[in-house]
């Protein structure tokens, strides 16, 4: 599995931003907040969350509205909204490019892009230093009728896999809680559970939890496709970049 490429805090005017490229999907995310909220959306004890998804071509459609509501509900559960009452956290996600074969795979394109949108928004939130309850990792699992399930497939892999029985998207919190599940197709509960366990294996790390001390196996380059390890690597690079002036003096 290819590891997503990330650029953090590259937009000048936004409070936090991230560009994320994986499997042909490229998304720019920007976060502004906490900022002033309009009186209509103000909530007395919580922050308001606004998610905008802009497609690569054309204007937003009901599909984008659907993605927005999925993202809104998932992100709401990981942002500490009660720490910033009567403010607004604005997340804008611009899809920059999709893989060429995206339309041809026949898979619901809401599902294929959802993990990438979730990762982009999380990275942008980290870049904006919005207080979060936990981190999030997400992936797509495709179950073909005739072969073994494919984890985080590219569009070409989906095309080659032949007819698909089911497609699942899972998102896990840092503490292995299941945050979001969207599934499409025909499957039994056992099959779903199997897919869920596979996703958990890739999304969450060893599970010892807690803070690892420096020099204790925190090798940034040793990414074996585990998404949590990948996320730690990204944050390690962000922190190193921010602290680099200390090395000079």
């Amino acid at each position, binding site marked *: 599995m290819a590891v997503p490429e990330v650029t*953090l*805090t590259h937009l000048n005017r936004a*409070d*936090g931003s991230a560009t994320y490229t994986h499997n042909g999907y490229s998304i720019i995310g920007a976060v*502004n*907040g*906490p*900022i*002033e909220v309009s009186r209509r959306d103000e909530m007395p004890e919580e922050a308001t969350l606004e998610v905008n998804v802009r497609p690569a071509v054309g204007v937003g459609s009901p599909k984008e509205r659907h993605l927005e509501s999925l993202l809104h509900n998932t992100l709401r559960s*990981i942002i*500490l909204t009660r*720490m*910033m*009452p*009567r403010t607004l956290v604005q997340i804008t996600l611009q899809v920059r490019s999709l893989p060429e074969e995206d339309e041809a795979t026949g898979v619901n394109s809401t599902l294929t892009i959802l993990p990438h949108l979730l990762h982009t928004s999380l990275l942008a939130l*980290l*870049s*904006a*230093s*919005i*207080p*979060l*309850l*936990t*981190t999030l990792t997400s992936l797509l699992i495709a179950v073909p009728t005739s072969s073994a399930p494919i984890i985080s497939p590219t569009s070409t892999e989906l095309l080659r896999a032949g007819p698909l029985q089911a497609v699942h998207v899972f998102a896990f*919190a*840092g*503490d292995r809680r299941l945050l979001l599940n969207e599934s499409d197709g025909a499957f039994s509960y056992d099959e779903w559970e199997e897919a869920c366990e596979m996703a958990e294996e890739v999304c969450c790390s060893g599970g010892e*939890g*807690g*803070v*690892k*001390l*420096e020099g204790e196996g*925190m090798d940034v380059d040793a990414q074996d496709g585990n998404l949590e390890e990948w*996320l*730690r690597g990204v*944050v*390690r690079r*962000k*922190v190193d970049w*921010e*602290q*680099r*002036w*200390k*090395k*000079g*003096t």
Partner: protein
Amino acid sequence: MAATSTTLVLPGDEIAPGALPTGTGKRKTLKLGPGLRHIPPNTIVSTVAGALVTNSKKNAASVEYNSGRYLPYPGDLVIATVNGSAAENFNCLLTPNTPPAALPHLAFEGATKKTRPQLPPASLVYCRVVSAGKDSAPELTCMDPATGKGEGLGLLKGGMVFKISLGMARRLLTPKGDLVLLESLGGKVGFEVTVGRNGLVHVDGGAVKTTLAIGQAIQTVDDRALDDVAQKKLAADVMKKVA
């Protein structure tokens, strides 16, 4: 950096009790800075991504990060922009698109009900944050409430404002945070630098040329994280431009 150590943390990471300083003597209670959250009875969880900084001397821990929006904290020195004047306060902005902070008309040195300071919109004020709860608008002051003296706070005249990163502002405001750049420049030209914790620095070098050169030099040091040697070189370049 003798008394401190750093560890990488992500939101939701539990801080192991071993990684936190243990208080001794009268500093028995642990102080938590930005980025950490206490969940009773004794779990400490980080809320942002950054480097965990602990200080065993002060028995304090916090997460250091250099991105995002400035959030006011009581005691911070900030450069506020006056947005308008209400009955008793000036409405000031610390960062764009946030609710205005209140700066009372009487919070200036020597101000009385009869002689109020007149500040037109868009003037810059160097002030201290008095209170900044999450449930109320932040409140600012331009004098020390104990003595009634200005102590360098007040209207910033002339000069220009430059944007710098929050980490750079924090670094410049620490007691030993003087830049080599500014020290070596200061030997040759006269100028005044005011640092606001909200990521702004106000430079007044008399002439526009000097002001611009110094402001841009500070931004360069921030962007490229220049070390002492490179800062000296930059200072020499700046001097050539100015002279």
